[in-house]
């Protein structure tokens, strides 16, 4: 039963902080950190056992939660390699970020509230990872949405943070609407919510491919909201209004990756879905990856740059799932969790020191904060995908699966994105840590409680890629292909996707693109042989568009919010005020009052008039009765 403890411990921590230790900030932080570390210690033995034996039988535990005629809903957990990898990432990165937060958030008003929300998030996220059926994953899916809302809006007295929280919540609703419709379609087609039972029914070929395609796209809507894919990506950059550790944990390493995890978990559906549906997913991923990388170029807020790079990475993962490379997507998810959490925590450390988010007000921080700078650069190298850092292996695997699926356009987009990513990461590093001094305060290295998580994450950001080393057996692909319910696990052998062949063409192409990106970045931002402002002026229209996020947010504000939403609101206001209140409610009252006034005249107060009416009535009834 220790698996259920994974859910109970963080939930208990959240409740304890909320109801008991809320007034005692320091104690609350220990409760929260303790809970997540306990979860990590529970996961660790399972994880180690899995490393030894990737083909172990999955463990499923469940109990009946809802039993009404025609509908049985269970709550259950499933432990298989896929969920164990995700559990490891969530609890491990989660532990480090909790520890980091204790220092980063020190002295904040609402310190205890912050940790209660974090524990709630860990609870919900573990629920998603452990879920063995669609209803449970949906319930916890919404719970992470709630935790994310609470944490984005942590500084709720700031209007921009409150707006960002609201935006994240509403945009996610759109995706979740599709998600739950997809769940209904699947339930209608298969009669079960359970992943493994559903997988067997679908693999038996009992569901038409049209239904599968529809369900696949609808379920993907959920991933689109949570993993911030175009056109629902607008909430993620704004979510950076939350505290930096939250950005690292929720909006980079874990929650936004939940969409990709869910796609991997329901891989049986995507393996059976028609090619057209998969192409839609792959292209949405590709568009997101490319567009987000471009948008990152136009930003000067360090957190927003990294946020857009997260969007771009998520696009990569989704693209990979779309072309059938679920293993590659999960591999990228894992390495991304490490280096992106590292980059965010590094950015947090810099912000902590400089009290600003603008990279143009930093500069030459390297001598002042050596640990942060070195770990940040390692994270940036991993992000760009330089050999032999972790990002190289995972990005290479994604590009290889795109290349070998024959989608050369997407492959080109992927390589181009890699180049642009290298360009803006070079910009961040060069402008923040080198160049001339532009800061006004007195930056200093962050305390040990913040630098240790940075160092640990940096180590993983460097070495995590070796888990997926081509030719290694068992390597990462083996684990993911052994996901419960998949055809490969069913047959107890290596799936087709597990065999990953190293492709020199892909590796060399992407590396060249990355180096071109770095060189351009170096020329512009470090050597300054190309004038930054000259380029901006030459392409002023495009540059402005980038700074304004390609006007997508404007479009949503003007057309959807102002044009459609406000008019719908006006219509509903009209219906409410004039039709419901004035016509229906006041109308009923008016008619009743008029009837009362008329009937009042018949009341004489004469007892015998009433008696006469009564007797007369009875006589009339009797006559009717006799005649009929």
């Amino acid at each position: 039963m220790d698996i259920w403890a994974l859910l109970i411990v963080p939930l208990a921590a959240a409740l304890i902080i909320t109801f008991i230790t809320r007034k005692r900030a320091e104690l609350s932080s220990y409760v929260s950190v303790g809970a997540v570390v306990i979860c990590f210690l529970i996961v660790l033995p399972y994880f180690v056992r899995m490393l030894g034996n990737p083909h172990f039988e999955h463990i499923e535990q469940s109990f009946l939660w809802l039993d009404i005629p025609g509908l049985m809903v269970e709550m259950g957990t499933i432990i298989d390699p896929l969920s164990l990898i995700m559990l490891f990432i969530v609890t491990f990165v989660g532990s480090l970020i909790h520890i980091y937060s204790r220092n980063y958030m020190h002295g904040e008003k609402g310190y205890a509230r912050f940790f209660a929300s974090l524990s709630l998030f860990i609870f919900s996220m573990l629920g998603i990872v452990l879920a063995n059926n669609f209803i449970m994953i949906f319930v916890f899916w919404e719970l992470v949405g709630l935790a994310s809302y609470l944490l984005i809006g942590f500084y709720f007295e700031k209007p921009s943070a409150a707006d960002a929280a609201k935006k994240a919540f509403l945009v996610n609703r759109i995706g979740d609407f599709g998600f739950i419709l997809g769940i209904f379609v699947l339930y209608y087609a298969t009669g079960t919510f359970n992943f493994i039972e559903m997988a067997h029914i679908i693999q038996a070929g009992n569901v038409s491919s049209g239904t599968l395609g529809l369900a696949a796209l609808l379920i993907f809507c959920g991933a689109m909201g949570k993993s911030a894919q175009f056109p629902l990506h607008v909430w993620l950059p704004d979510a950076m209004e939350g505290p930096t550790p939250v950005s690292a944990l929720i909006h980079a390493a874990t929650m936004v990756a939940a969409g990709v995890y869910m796609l991997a978990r329901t891989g049986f559906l995507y393996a059976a879905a028609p090619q057209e549906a998969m192409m839609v997913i792959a292209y949405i991923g590709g568009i997101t990856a490319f567009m987000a990388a471009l948008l990152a170029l136009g930003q000067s807020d360090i957190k927003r740059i990294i946020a857009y790079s997260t969007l771009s990475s998520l696009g990569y993962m989704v693209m990979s799932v779309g072309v059938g490379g679920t293993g590659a997507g999960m591999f990228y998810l894992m390495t991304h969790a490490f280096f992106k959490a590292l980059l965010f925590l590094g950015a947090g450390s810099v912000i902590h020191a400089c009290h600003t988010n603008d990279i143009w007000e930093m500069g030459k921080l390297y001598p002042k904060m050596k640990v942060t700078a070195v770990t940040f650069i390692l994270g940036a190298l991993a992000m760009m995908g330089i050999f032999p850092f972790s990002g190289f292996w995972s990005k290479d695997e994604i590009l290889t699966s795109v290349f070998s699926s024959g989608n050369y356009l997407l492959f080109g987009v992927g390589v181009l994105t890699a180049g642009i990513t290298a360009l803006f990461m070079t910009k961040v590093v060069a402008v923040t840590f080198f160049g001339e001094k532009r800061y006004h305060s007195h930056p200093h290295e962050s305390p040990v409680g913040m630098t240790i998580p940075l160092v640990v994450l940096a180590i993983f950001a460097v070495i995590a890629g070796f888990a997926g080393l081509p030719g290694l057996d068992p390597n990462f692909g083996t684990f993911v292909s052994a996901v419960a319910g998949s055809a490969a696990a069913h047959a107890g052998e290596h799936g087709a996707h597990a065999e990953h062949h190293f492709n020199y063409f892909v590796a060399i192409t992407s590396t060249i693109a990355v180096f071109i990106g770095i060189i351009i970045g170096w020329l512009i931002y470090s050597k300054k042989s190309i004038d930054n402002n000259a380029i901006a002026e030459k392409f002023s229209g495009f540059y402005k568009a980038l700074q304004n996020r390609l006007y997508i947010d404007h479009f949503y504000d003007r057309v959807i919010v102002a044009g459609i939403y406000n008019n719908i609101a006006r219509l509903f206001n009209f219906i409410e005020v004039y039709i419901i209140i004035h016509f229906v409610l006041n109308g009923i009252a008016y008619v009743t009052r008029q009837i009362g006034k008329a009937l009042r005249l018949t009341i004489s107060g004469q007892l015998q008039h009433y008696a006469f009416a009564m007797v007369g009535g009875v006589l009339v009834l009797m006559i009717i009765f006799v005649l009929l």
Partner: protein
Amino acid sequence: MTLNHYLILSFILFSIGVAGVLLRRNIIIVLMSLELIFNSVNISLAAFAYYLKSITGTVFVVFNITVAAAEVAIGLAILVAVYRTRKTVNVEELKDMRY
């Protein structure tokens, strides 16, 4: 004596009672007429009970008499109270229960 005889008697008493309620001005007479209606119903109930060999009707009669006794007690008490305040028992003068 058949059932019809009893029913005819009951009908005659009922009609006298209704006429009394509708036509008399003295509220005490009205009340007495009401009692007459009551008892006409009791007669038909008892007759039916006898001819249908069922005890139910007889039981109802006993209940009716009990309830009627209680009702008369309350009704007379109200009449006494009304007479003390209004100094009249004429129904046509007691017409304040209106708008």
